[in-house]
Every structure is written in structure tokens, then in C-alpha cells.
């Protein structure tokens, strides 16, 4: 039985700098699961994520979040929908004028979600969960790549979002740190039960942590299946893309 759908993309097209990037993407994101989008570099996976959260608007097509079309909403309505979301950026995108604690507290304070005394309680608790218990006073410039990603994850999780987007969460990290971040995402998913949409190149690791895998190729979704079924697909383009890293990992 297919689970309920929280985000639906219908025929999304986008041209950037004269180059067509998305050429009619149809994609359904199941609620409460982790869906990973894979595909060659430069295929527009990050562009696709930016469409899902309304940072980019499609030239044609629809992006439906809980039935609301983001392509046609104005700023204020878009902000309402964005309250369901959080995003972990490839670069972590921490505010470099603020320390770790202030970064994590920022969405809580700015949106006045909770009182200041609750901020003082929630933020250290969240930092503890991502393994940055004593790092609250550090500034982003003083952190390693892994710590930045952890801080970004804490900032995304602290608002208890329904949906979290992960843009290549382990790019630029050593294998051990990448493993740690993947474990963290899985354990946080178990704890908080959000819908996760991830863009990643980490094959084969993503098969064990994702419920669903979709492949973007030539501006379209080539295939989307449950993680275990995806690995058995016979499509030559899929096989080519997933077999080489798999073979390398095996050797």
C-alpha cells in the first residue's frame, strides 16, 4: 500500500541561464518517509529541492504541498507554508555573525515560537542530541565541516518541522563523519517522524537509510521505487549509475 502523499510535483519545468534544467518533473513525496533523490552532478537536484521549498518558482508546472500550489502563492502565503519546512544546506548556511547557540535559537526567537526561557532549555537540549553539547559559544568559522552540518541539523530540527530537506548533507566530509551524519539523520527521523527529502551521491549508503529512492536524469524523474526495489531495477541508466559505486564499495 502506498502511503499518503505530502508533496506532489507535476510537470515542473525550469530553464536557468538559457539551459533547460528541469524538463517536466513528476514526483510524489510520501509522508513520514525519507526519500532520496540521486542523479549525476549538474542534473538539477538542488534546483529541484529549491522548487519544493519555494526558493525558486517553476516556469511551468505545479508544486503542491498539502494541496497548495507554491508556484502561484504570494509571499505571505508562502511563508505560512514554509513554516512546515526546514532545510539543511550543502554548505550548512550558518549565520556567521552568530555563534552556534544563536544560530540554533534564531528560528525560535525570530518566529517567537516559544518563550525565551524555553529557548534557553530547548537549544542546549538539541545541541546535546547532535553531539555539540559544549560548542554553543563557538562561531561557525571555528567549526569543522562535520560540526557545521550538525549545527545546521540542530537548527533545522529545533522548530519541529513536518518536512526537512537535506541538500547533500555529507558532501565534503570524511567517511566516518559522513557515516555519523547519516546515523544522526536516521535516529532523528525515528525520534521526530518528519518527512525527509534528501539529495545525495552517497551510494550505496543511502539505500539503507532511505525508504524511497528517485533518480533524476535529463531533467526528469527516471524512476522512483522503494529503496530495496530500486536496487533491483533493470533500467540500464539506473544500473550504470548505482553499480559502479556499489562495486567500488564491495571491493
Amino acid at each position: 500500500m502506498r502511503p499518503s502523499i505530502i508533496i506532489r510535483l507535476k510537470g515542473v519545468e525550469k530553464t536557468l541561464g538559457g539551459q533547460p534544467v528541469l524538463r517536466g518533473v513528476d514526483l510524489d513525496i510520501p509522508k513520514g518517509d525519507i526519500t532520496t533523490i540521486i542523479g549525476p552532478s549538474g542534473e538539477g537536484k538542488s534546483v529541484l529541492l529549491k522548487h519544493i521549498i519555494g526558493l525558486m518558482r517553476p516556469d511551468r508546472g505545479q508544486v503542491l504541498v498539502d494541496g497548495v500550489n507554491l508556484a502561484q502563492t504570494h509571499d505571505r502565503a508562502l511563508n505560512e507554508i514554509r513554516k512546515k519546512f526546514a532545510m539543511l544546506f550543502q554548505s550548512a548556511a550558518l549565520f556567521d555573525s552568530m555563534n552556534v547557540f544563536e544560530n540554533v535559537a534564531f528560528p525560535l526567537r525570530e518566529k517567537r515560537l516559544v518563550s525565551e526561557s524555553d529557548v534557553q532549555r530547548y537549544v542546549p537540549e538539541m545541541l546535546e542530541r547532535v553531539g555539540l553539547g559544549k560548542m554553543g559559544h563557538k562561531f561557525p568559522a571555528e567549526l569543522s565541516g562535520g560540526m557545521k552540518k550538525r549545527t545546521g541539523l540542530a537548527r533545522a530540527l529545533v522548530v519541529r518541522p513536518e518536512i526537512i530537506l537535506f541538500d547533500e548533507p555529507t558532501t565534503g566530509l570524511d567517511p566516518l563523519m559522513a557515516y555519523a551524519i547519516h546515523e544522526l539523520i536516521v535516529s532523528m527521523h525515528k525520534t521526530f517522524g518528519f518527512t525527509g527529502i534528501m539529495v545525495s551521491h552517497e551510494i550505496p549508503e543511502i539505500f539503507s537509510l532511505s525508504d524511497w529512492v528517485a533518480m533524476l536524469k535529463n531533467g526528469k524523474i527516471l524512476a522512483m521505487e522503494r529503496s530495496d526495489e530500486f536496487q533491483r531495477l533493470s533500467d540500464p541508466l539506473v544500473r550504470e549509475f548505482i553499480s559502479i559505486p556499489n562495486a567500488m564499495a564491495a571491493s
Partner: protein
Amino acid sequence: MNVIQAIGARVIAWIEEMGAMLLFLLRSFGWLFRPPLRLFQIIKQLHFVGFKSTFVVMLTALFTGMVLALQGYYSLRKFGSEGLLGSAVALSIIRELGPVLASLMVTARAGSAMTAEIGIMRITEQIDAMETMAINSLQYLITPKIVASLISVPLLVALFDVVGIGGGYVVAVKLLGVSGGSYWSSIESAVEWKDVYGGILKSISFGLIISWVCCYKGYFTKMSAEGLGEATTEAVVLAAVLILVWDYFLTSILL
């Protein structure tokens, strides 16, 4: 045909940019009147644009006043009118040099920093991150800078005027031997409220130009270090040129 096409494309791109700049300004202003009021951000920007520019503005003012007195003294002495030195210094500073030079110094010091700061936030996706948190980046980043510039620049110009006239006094009276009484009385008789008012009006509009141009160039910077360098240069040059051009038109209306 290609030449005409190329010219046409340039003109269209130019008009599009003008439109984008105007929309950027109107939207940033619009966010001032919607809650929440970013008071802390405004105060932070007042400190940065206003307070931190006081030293450089005072220094510029001091030497501008001093050189005006020196130049004016030798010109006026030919006609035996050294007594008018005070009014020459004060009118030049209050009407023209105060608003223009103080604004150019603010552009160089605070305007360039605005472009660089916002541009880096754009390149490192900090602005996108803010937007994904349902926080409007114009309201959080741009509106406070515009408000702070509108308040700070006129105050800095007032400071420039006072220090500049003081610098003129030191050179005229203490070094060149003009009588102190005639220096002040010529200012009192020559400077009218209209001159001061015109200077304030100019400085408010210059404050708007600085924050508008510099924030716009940073917000829409190209996504590279080179692009940000270009954006900062363009911002400073465009703001400075606009200040001088607008100064001419405003002067011709005010006179």
C-alpha cells in the same frame, strides 16, 4: 542589424535593472510597516552606519573647513573682503560640501560594507536559509539598513557642518589673523534657514541613495568571489555618481 540588436538588448537590460531596483526599494519600504518591527536590527545599523562613521566624517570635515578658509582667505584678500571669510566657508559647507562629502565618506565606509556583507550572505546561502525559515530577508536585512541610513546621514552631515565651520575658524582666526567677531557675524548674517533646510533635504536623499544602491548590488550579486568584488565596486561607484548627479538637480530646484 546586429549593432542595433546589441544596443537594444543593452537598453532593455538597463530598463529592467532600473525596474528591479525600484521594486526592491518599494518592497523593502513596504516591510517597514508590517510587523515585527526590527528595532534591534535598526539600532545595530544606526551604530554601524552612524556612530562608527563619526570619526572619519569629522576628520574630513575638519580639513575641508581648514582648506576652505585658507583658499578663501587668499582669494578674498585681493578684494579686501577677509571679513566675509566666515560666510564663504559656512555657505560652501552647509549648502554643498557637507552633504556631498559626508555622504561620499559614508558610501566608502558603510555602503561598501553593506554590499559585501549582504553579498556574502547571498553567496553562502544565508539569505536562502533565512527565507526557508519563513523570515523575510528584505525585512530582516535591508529595511533596517535603509532606515538607519535615512536617520544617520543627516545627523552626520550636521556634524560635518559644525566641525567644518570650526576648522575654518581655527585657520582663519588663529592662523591667518582674521577677527573672530567678523568670522561669526558674517556667518550669522549670510546663512539662512533655507540653506540649512536644503542641506538636510539633500542629506536625507543621499542617505536613501547610499543604502538603496549598496543593498541592491549586494542582494543581487553574482555567485562568485569575483562577482562580489564587482558588485562592491559597482555599488560604490554608482552611489557616488548618483549622489553628485542628484545633488546638481536638487540644487537647481532648491535655489
